[in-house]
Each structure stands twice: as structure tokens, then as C-alpha cells.
């Protein structure tokens, strides 16, 4: 359906719930939210401002954040986010996105 704006709203609601009932559910929700936000930004051409990653600064979130930053023309920040995406392969000691 490619209705990314709606999927962002749904994931935002799910994120508020905490998502603790299933292992890694919160991480999955944050990751999917970042993907939906990025694709929504590409589709609408308009950013949605800052958001919390709830401490999940893993590969997917950083990569999706970079994708969103590219859509907004923020290329230097996108490069930094991509570097963080790669650094997230390593144990969690790096700063977040």
C-alpha cells in the first residue's frame, strides 16, 4: 500500500506502549518506525523532526536515519549516520544516532 505516513503513526502508537511483551519487540518497533519515517520523508519530501530511538541505535535505525537525512539533503549528517551504522556491528560502546 505504501502508505508510510499511516504506518509511522501506528508505529509511534506502538512505541508508546513500550513493546515489552515479546523479546526484542521494542527494538523491532523502533527499527520499523525509523524505516517508515525515512520512506515517508522520501515520499512526501518533508521531514518529521527529531525523534527518540529509545536507546536502540543499532544498524537498522542508524541506516534508516541516514536514508531520511539524505532525503532532507543533509549529506554530512547522513555520512555520520552511515559510519555509526557500520560501527554498530561492534559491541555497544558508540554514541547514538
Amino acid at each position, binding site marked *: 500500500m505504501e502508505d508510510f*505516513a499511516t504506518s509511522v503513526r501506528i508505529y509511534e502508537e506502538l512505541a508508546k506502549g513500550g513493546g515489552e511483551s515479546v523479546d526484542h519487540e521494542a527494538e523491532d518497533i523502533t527499527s520499523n518506525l525509523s524505516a517508515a519515517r525515512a520512506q*515517508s520523508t522520501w*515520499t512526501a519530501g518533508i521531514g518529521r523532526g527529531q525523534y527518540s530511538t529509545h536507546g536502540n541505535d543499532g544498524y537498522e535505525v542508524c*541506516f534508516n536515519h541516514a536514508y531520511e537525512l539524505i532525503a532532507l539533503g543533509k549529506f554530512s549528517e547522513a555520512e555520520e549516520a552511515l559510519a555509526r551504522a*557500520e560501527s554498530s*556491528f*561492534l559491541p555497544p560502546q558508540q554514541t547514538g544516532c
Partner: protein
Amino acid sequence: MCRLELCARSGLTGDELKVEQGIILAQLAFVKLLSNNKAEAAKLISDIQSQTYCLLLVISHHYRNVDAVTRAIAMNNQLVLEPSENPFTNLRILSAAAHSFTPSKPFLAQLRPFNANMALAESIAKKPAKKQKLDSLDCATATSRLYMELEDATDVLAKLLSIFHRDESNVAVGLLLVQWHTQAGNRQDAAAILERLIHASKDLGVKYVPGLVSLAVSLLPEEASTPLLLDAKRYWDKQTSSVQSSIIEGTF
């Protein structure tokens, strides 16, 4: 740090690591391309294609495999950077890239650059355009189809005006004319074309698309652009799906 150590610390297998890093590098190459840093973009793309590249963080060369979709994206971007002088070579490479990319079920927005480049390559290679329904906002594809029509024209502006006269709702031609007049410093002519384009647009989703409205705000006098802006807001307010909430939140 050697690759084995990196694999062990990341918890990924060697193949998984190759794929993930290939994706990051393909995206980084795209950023370099958009930043007009063509030399670095070309190097990254070449490394991805040859499967020999350095990690961003680890200074060490490794031979690695890149998945088919990443390779297709790299091929597409390499053609943007370094097209062959032989149009048939370009078309063949693009076809191969699209063939690898399409089975991954990309979103429409992801598929659009491939379609636009393919249409352009087909036009340059004099291959008849496929009779597929055009997305009315897919200006790149529509513009590339104009290529053959305009190539032999002695007066391109007159030809464009003639095409626009036949259909003033043609977004691609309208925007080409706006760009033409703007670059020549003819702001009034550019504004007149844009007004005609917006007036003729029957599809309100096209008429009120943010890019056109934004262009109108910058080109048209306030008495013309303000009502359009308000009409666009009313239109997007009424929509209950798609991207309208982002547009309303971001624009107004």
C-alpha cells in the same frame, strides 16, 4: 582488526557482514554522488562492483561478495557517473541492473530512478518507448521521452511550447519551460507558464503537490500564490490516507 575478529565481535557470519557492509557502502556512494564528490563516489562504486573495498572503520582490504540488489544499485549509479559512449552498452547494463533489482519488490519510490534511467537510455538508443501508463508526477521518465522528440528540433523552445499548447497539464513539459525561462532570466514568462500549468491541472493530487505549490510560492505574486497555498491546505486536510499528514505537518 582482521575480518575474523570483526565477525566474532559483531556476531555476524562473514557472509552476513559482507552483505551489510556492501549496503552501507552503496548508500555512502550515493551520498557522495549527491554531494558532487564524484571521485569518491566512483571509487566506492568501483570497489563494490569489484568486491574489493575497505571497511569504513577498519583499514584492511578484503575480498567479499555483495548481494545482487546492492550491486544493481551500484551499477545504476556508476552509469550516472560514467556512462559509456555506446548507448547500447548503457541500455544493456541498465537492463541487467533492473533485472536484478525488480525481484526484491522495491517500493515505487525506489523503482522510479531505475525506470527513469531506463526510459532515458531507451530514448538515446532509439528504442521505442514502452507503452506503459505514466505516473503523472514521474517527470524524469516523461522528460526522457521528450528526448527523441526534441533531438532533431531546430527550435527546441518553439517545439516545447507547441507540445505544451496541446496539453497544458503536462507537468514535465511545463516544468521544462519554467526552468528554461528561469535560467534565461525571464521570470515573468516562467510564472505565466506555471500559472497555466496549475490552472490546467485537473488532478488535484498533482495540482497541489508540494513541489508545484512551493514553486508557485517562489515564482508567483503573493495574490496568486496565497490562495493556491490555502486551497492546497484544504485539499490535503480532507485526505485521509497517503502522505498528506506529513505534508500538512511540514508545510503549514
